[in-house]
């Protein structure tokens, strides 16, 4: 009692699906493959990736061929009679040994090349440059350990039609080519993952722990990646961008950075008393870089997720409470402690800005020395 057979559709469509499955991965065009490697270590990984891709493709071709052949050759409608003793022939008796042995052979050859690449990824040779990469909700902070220079890297806001939409930042990490660069990865709040496929294998940023990875960039250029570990509301909006330049240009760039940093530090630690307008203007800049992602452009926040600053009890209440929450953060929420991240002037400016904007009428002015006292 069999339902009637319909044999037309199967032989025509199933091979189609099979070919679709197999052909895709075999094409090595870069738009559909891993990004072209631009460092020694990622080149090694890329080669490994292509090896496993080809093995995968060949296995799929064999499996698909076996299945398609049996679909044609052993059709009931063509009078095929089932061989009831097939599983008792020599192949049937030994396939359970043969198949695992063949698969084990393939497995071990993949594992051995993978293991040697893994040793390169995990090698701890002496590095020329060490960068501390800190992920926070939702930006990256880079610190050059040898030079003491710090870069805060925020999403550059662009329209969804721009080719660099969600791919560009205000301050990229600048690295020299031809040098071994070590990355120390950590986080200030939740898990993040700093991933730029062209130049560096991923490692997770864990709050309270330090992970390590490295690169040796071979080509100058700009390399773009983003955060690869779900970190909440702004996860889609924290690109990671590296600009690789020649060692000479790098040295020059580093000198400029140091001069600028020194100027900013002098300015921040001077005893100068700032005018309200100066602080509000500077505060607006600091706000849009650091606070806007959560508290929004008009200080309205996101209801239920991020509190509004416009009209809030803290921005209109005692100034000490306001300084306290900005400097020390609020445990158990996304509100970070900004004390270690911003200097006294920036914090003073942003608090002054918040207390005098969006209809907030506290009206007071906070000076850098107030912040120093509150730390």
């Amino acid at each position, binding site marked *: 009692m069999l*339902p009637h057979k319909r044999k037309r559709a199967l032989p025509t469509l199933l091979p189609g699906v099979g070919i679709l499955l197999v052909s895709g991965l075999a094409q090595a065009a870069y738009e559909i493959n891993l990004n072209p490697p631009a460092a020694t270590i990622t080149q090694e990984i890329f080669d490994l990736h292509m090896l496993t891709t080809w093995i995968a493709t060949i296995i799929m071709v064999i499996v698909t061929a076996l299945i398609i052949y049996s679909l044609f050759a*052993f059709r009931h409608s063509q009078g095929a009679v089932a061989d009831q003793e097939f599983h008792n022939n020599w192949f049937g008796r030994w396939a359970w040994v043969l198949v*695992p042995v063949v698969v084990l052979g393939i497995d071990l050859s993949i594992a051995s090349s993978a293991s040697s*690449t893994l040793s390169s990824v995990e090698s701890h040779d002496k590095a020329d440059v060490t960068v501390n990469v800190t992920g926070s909700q939702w930006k990256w902070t880079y610190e050059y350990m040898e030079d003491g220079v710090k870069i805060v890297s925020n999403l550059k806001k662009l329209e969804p039609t721009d080719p660099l*939409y969600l791919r560009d930042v205000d301050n990229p990490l600048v690295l020299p080519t031809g040098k071994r660069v070590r990355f120390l990865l950590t986080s200030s709040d939740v898990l993040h993952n700093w991933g730029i496929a062209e130049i560096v294998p991923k490692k997770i940023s864990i709050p309270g722990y330090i992970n390590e990875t490295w690169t040796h960039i071979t080509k100058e250029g700009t390399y773009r*990646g983003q955060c690869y570990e779900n970190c909440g509301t702004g996860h889609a909006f924290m690109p990671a961008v590296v600009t690789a330049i020649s060692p000479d240009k790098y040295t020059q760039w580093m000198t400029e950075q140091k001069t600028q940093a020194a100027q900013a530090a002098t300015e921040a630690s001077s005893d100068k008393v700032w005018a309200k307008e100066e602080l509000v203007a500077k505060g607006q800049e600091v706000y849009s870089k650091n606070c806007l992602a959560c508290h929004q452009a008009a200080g309205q926040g996101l209801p239920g997720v991020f509190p509004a600053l416009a009209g809030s009890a803290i921005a209109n209440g005692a100034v000490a409470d306001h300084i306290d929450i900005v400097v020390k953060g609020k445990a158990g929420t996304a509100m970070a402690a900004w004390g270690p991240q911003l200097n006294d002037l920036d914090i003073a400016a942003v608090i002054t800005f918040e207390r005098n904007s969006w209809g907030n009428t506290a009206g007071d002015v906070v000076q850098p020395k107030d912040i120093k006292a509150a730390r």
Partner: protein
Amino acid sequence: MSGAVAHDDHHDHHGPPKGWQRWLYSTNHKDIGTMYLFFALFMLFFGGAMAMYIRAELFMPGIQLASPDFYNNMVTDHALVMVFGMVMPAAAGMANWMIPMMIGAPDMALPRLNNLSFWLLPAAALMLILSILAPYIFPDGGTPVNTGWTLLPPLSVQAGMGMDFTIFAVHLLGVSSILASINIVTTILNMRAPGMTMLKMPLFVWAWFFTGLLLIAIMPVLAGAVTMLLFDRHFGTSFFDAAGGGDPILFQHLFWFFGHPEVYVLLLPSIGVLGLIIPTFSRKPLFGYKPLVGGMAFLATLGMVVWAHHQYTIGMSLGATNYFMIGTILISIPVGLMLLNFIFTMWRGSLTFETPMLFGIAIILMFSFAGVTGVMLAVVPADMQYHDTMFVVAHFHYALIPGAVFGLYAGVFYWLPKWTGHMYDERLGKIFFWWTTISFNITFFPQHFSGLAGMPRRIVDYSIQYTEFNVISSIGGFMFGLSHLLFLYIIFKTIRGGAKAPAKPWEGSQIGTTGLEWTLPSPPPFHSFTEAPVVK
């Protein structure tokens, strides 16, 4: 109560109680199986609606429909609903219906426990729905559950009240699965008919035996992990907070100790269904019954000790990483053994292509594909590039939709005649097969490419270089979603009527197996096997 009175009562209660009491108080394996299956069907549409929202949001760059947190809430609950609400209850429903009939038992070993394990599920579903609504209905609801189904701290500690409801839902789902598994394993060990030795059991029974053992081993670990999370959130313990001496990575180890075997919990019942369907429509015994049983045992064992391959980027020691890599690659041995056994069951057979068989063949092909991308992902240095990209999303949807969900669809078509007493509409069944299989591939195949090109998972918005693949994926996704309305129609059409199904609707269904279930009429009587059948 004297024996005589009890005897009279017994005579008054032939057949099931009427109305809602039949279902609420049910201790009958077939009724409970039916309830499990309908619950799973409902959750399929619930979780499917979330998937439709996800594809609509990703149709174009830019934020289209709702906030990033709502998006990630849907990603989280799509996974939880599909894994715990759909695949596991559907597989448990099939186990309830078929295992007692397959081994010649009158019912499950623990019928009241069976009732409890089902009725915990609607309560858990309610908790899950509350977790979605919490941010909107409670004044201090906080952030939606935006972590993904892995619920990783510290992000899950930041989330609002919805996270607590999710944790309670996971507790209830866990208790339900543990009870169901204890029941199934006990039934298999104790309720077999005379002569039904372990090595005569149909493959589906073996598959559920290993599934049950896995669930009993792993579910308590998940329950412990989410309880620790609850304590971190509310009682200031710092299990997962480095600032208090804890470690966020500890949660990942606990979660994946559950999470990886869970993948096999989802796959094995479908492998068991495949082990019945392929021989039936090839009219030839399984090529290797014992290797398949051994392969499943090997798979279940190995699956328990390779969990950290989900966390290659956490910075483990070189030795540990190598161990997890090689262990994971070795999984290809039992999986390869299974797939080749199915292929060689078809080899020199006599094949017909009814809907269950079409699904069976598609599963072998597409699950092999998931297998080879699985080996690619197992290679640690390469995984450091693939990690948390859409490539991973494509891989596990290829593993879980053909490997688990299509296996369940195949089972539904294979057993619908037995369950309802009516043949389903073969023409509609085939249309459904081609529609789902093609649209599934359109949905998920392009995600391999967007993933390799670097598109992360769990992002609400993406840069324009990924647009084309996402448009294709979304169109395929909508087609895939729509095909399930046909599935629903076929099921209800078959329940309401159709050609009368004989006791054995498939010519080859008893080849190479005892097939006790096919000796009963379709549909089987309310109480099957009042006298134990003897298996020779």
